[in-house]
């Protein structure tokens, strides 16, 4: 796990805005977000393993949305790529079993996604003493 996370992985202004809104509830929200990230990541992995486009889409979408809301940009962007690919399959096929054309980008993005989740969780935990 990297101890030196590039600053442009995060929109610190957005994160501060979220902190300003949530005030003393912010740490709890972050803890819930970190826990959810792990769940979404596991579900996306399972979905890819099973070639299940619904499962991949349904978990990459909230991972993207929540991360974007907190200014966790790199993670949001990678999740968006995976969401886009899985939804593209769902829009073009009646079967939830992902075609390789849509599955391969998801598989390729997974190492980056796992690192982004790790980096985000570490950053938030250290920055906000969770």
């Amino acid at each position, binding site marked *: 796990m990297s101890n030196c996370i590039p600053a442009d992985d995060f929109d610190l202004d957005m994160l501060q*805005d*979220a902190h300003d809104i949530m005030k003393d509830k912010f740490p709890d*929200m972050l803890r819930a977000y970190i826990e959810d990230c792990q769940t979404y990541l596991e579900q996306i992995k399972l979905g890819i393993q099973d070639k299940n486009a619904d499962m991949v889409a349904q978990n990459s979408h909230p991972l993207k949305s*929540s991360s974007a*809301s907190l200014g966790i940009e790199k993670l949001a962007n990678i999740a968006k790529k995976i969401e886009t690919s899985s939804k593209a399959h769902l829009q073009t096929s009646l079967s939830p079993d992902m075609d390789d054309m849509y599955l391969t980008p998801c598989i390729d993005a997974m190492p980056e996604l796992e690192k982004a989740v790790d980096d985000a969780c570490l950053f938030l935990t250290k920055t906000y003493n969770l």
Partner: protein
Amino acid sequence: MPNHHILIVEDNATHRAMACEILKTMGYQVSTAGDGYAALAKLQLEPQRYDLVLMDWEMPGMNGLDTVREIRTCQIKEGWPHIPIIAFTANKQQGDSEKCLAAGMDDYIPKDLFLPKWHKTLADKITNWIKTHGANE
């Protein structure tokens, strides 16, 4: 400004928590539901309680469109009062806004307003909407 009660229907926990805090800071009473089924359950218990519903478009299970259709059906069949419903949508496809209105939503706002940097805009939009349309008086 009357103490209006807003129901936020949104499956994303982060968005739901932030929207709730933004609107509470503005002085509204706020309830939340994590999906369409939970929203219907709350409305079934007390249909007169809520002055406005903010409805996410894309939710797992029962999506926003299906939820609002079900609410409008209950208005007719079970005599619920008309509950104003504002959809929030990414509005990325042509016709998304029209679909919202056709399904029975009263209005729609961009989902980007749920990002923290737009929270004042979101609060102002809701307040102005209630002033203009009266919510459920």
